[in-house]
């Protein structure tokens, strides 16, 4: 059972349309404080739409989204961000013509960089320090992903929404990102993470929600799902062992 006080973010019966198509069909989802919640599902199941709806980038047609006791369903994206929710989109959302420093600076509070937070980012992603004054567009895919996550944590946030951070990265880069996510997990950062790499999902996730055709069809412990091959087959159409 999840106590109400444990829940940082709750979606109740959220419907989202994109153009004429209904993508989310009543999503119910809870993200607990200090936990990493994995959102898994097949391609086109509605994972990205869920994150974008939480962020206010697409409007929920029906249903409620509550963040730390405050309804954010109808809130504009900048206000949602200012509540302490950081979003790392699938395409990373890097400003390619701005430098690494400028990309990070934009995510800071008006006072600018807090040294402690900046040190934490550069410690997790030393490559960013080496590329500090380079245009972000010139970074490799992995470095861009580091920058995107670094930008999300350069200020203290209450919740991170991260969409497929390891997609298209080399195995070495995936390991580095997984280590960074584990570091965030150890710091009790609340994260809602969409991830197709089951190895990373198993290593990082505390809780899991599986979405299919715009509905949450399973919630529970990540460890339990990782241990139950039959359940993986039923929910995701493949097992983690074969996906690795």
């Amino acid at each position, binding site marked *: 059972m999840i106590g109400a006080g444990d829940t940082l973010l709750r979606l109740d019966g959220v419907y989202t349309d994109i153009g004429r198509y209904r993508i989310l069909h009543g999503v119910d989802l809870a993200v607990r404080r200090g936990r990493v919640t994995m959102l898994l599902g097949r391609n086109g199941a509605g994972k990205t739409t869920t994150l974008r709806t939480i962020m206010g980038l697409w409007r929920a047609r029906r249903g409620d989204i509550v963040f730390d006791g405050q309804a954010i369903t109808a809130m504009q994206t900048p206000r949602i*961000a200012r509540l302490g929710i950081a979003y790392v989109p699938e395409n990373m*959302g890097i400003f390619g013509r*701005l430098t690494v420093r400028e990309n990070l600076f934009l995510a800071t509070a*008006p006072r600018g960089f807090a040294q402690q937070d900046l040190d934490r980012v550069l410690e997790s992603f030393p490559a960013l320090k080496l590329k500090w004054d380079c245009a972000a567009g010139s970074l490799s895919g992995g470095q861009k992903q580091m920058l995107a996550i670094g930008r999300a944590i350069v200020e203290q946030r209450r919740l991170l929404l991260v969409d497929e951070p390891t997609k298209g990265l080399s195995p070495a880069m995936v390991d580095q990102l997984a280590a960074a996510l584990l570091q965030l997990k150890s710091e009790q950062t609340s994260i809602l993470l969409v991830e197709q790499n089951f190895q990373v999902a198993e290593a990082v996730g505390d809780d899991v929600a599986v979405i299919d055709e715009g509905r949450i069809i399973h919630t529970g412990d990540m460890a339990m799902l990782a241990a139950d091959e039959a359940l993986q087959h039923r929910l995701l159409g493949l097992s983690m062992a074969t996906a690795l």
Partner: protein
Amino acid sequence: MSENWRDRLQRCAPYALAPLVILAALPAIGPGPWATLTLAGLTMGVMLFLVASGLTLIFGLMDVLNFAHAAFVTVGAYVAVSVLRPLAGWTAAQSLTLNLIALLVALIAAAAASGALGFVFERLIIRQVYGAPLRQILITIGGLTVIEQLVIVIWGPQAIPLPRPASLRGSVFFGSSSIETYRLVALCVGLSVAVAMQLFLTRTRLGLVVRAGVENREMIQALGYNIRRVFVGVFMAGTALAGMGGMMWGQYQAVVGSQIGDSMTILVFIILIIGGLGSVSGCFIGAILVGLTSNYVDFLAPKLALGSNVLLMALILLWQPRGLLPISEQ
């Protein structure tokens, strides 16, 4: 390795274009007129940049192609006429200081009036048509017509002389070439504004937000910035710059008519396309190239003068189909 070298060359080439054009023109024109024409081209370029930079930012940030931009040029020029009339004593005085103060007052008034009108225009008209390109085109062309007719109602249909201040009427001689004093001043003012704009865009948080917003509007909102508010500011700044450009262009021509904005429109759109829509640096390079080409071709082959900038645009688009410095993600 060779690919890196090619990439670097490709990236730097747009910045080398204007110097190359200047150097290439020297043997064809001869040193005397070349210096005069080059300065005239640069002056024209920076004035066009003032007008075009606002439009490129407005388009880059909000996908709004504002065909009424020329109206703000016209308003700026006419407000300068009205401001300089009571200051006629200062402009006629043989004192450079008084002349420059009068120019500065007119410049500020032109920018303020066009900026304020831009604020009203954005709230009443542009805000209703975000995300609807066809309606944007129709409504901004309508806005252009309305503002130009209002200008005729207020200032009359006849062109009004806008004489240059006394100290800026002559020419300065450098060896065999002569350069109009006003052009030197206009070049300094234009470059100062361009540098200030560059500093604002690169050294301030708001400037970074504008540049980032041009690249990826959605992400800048997801970082907590209200892009609508930023856009109102950019729209006002863009129209204020157009007003400044109108005032300086009016003095450059020494006469102001209700079509002064329209006369720049084609050139401004050529500059936007050459530079890459949404790119301020590209806009600057494009403006300088258009200014130089106009002056050089006017001298070398007057019959080609009208089409020279269209030809320039066509050549650049054949080389770089999205303009010299396109904004990558839109």
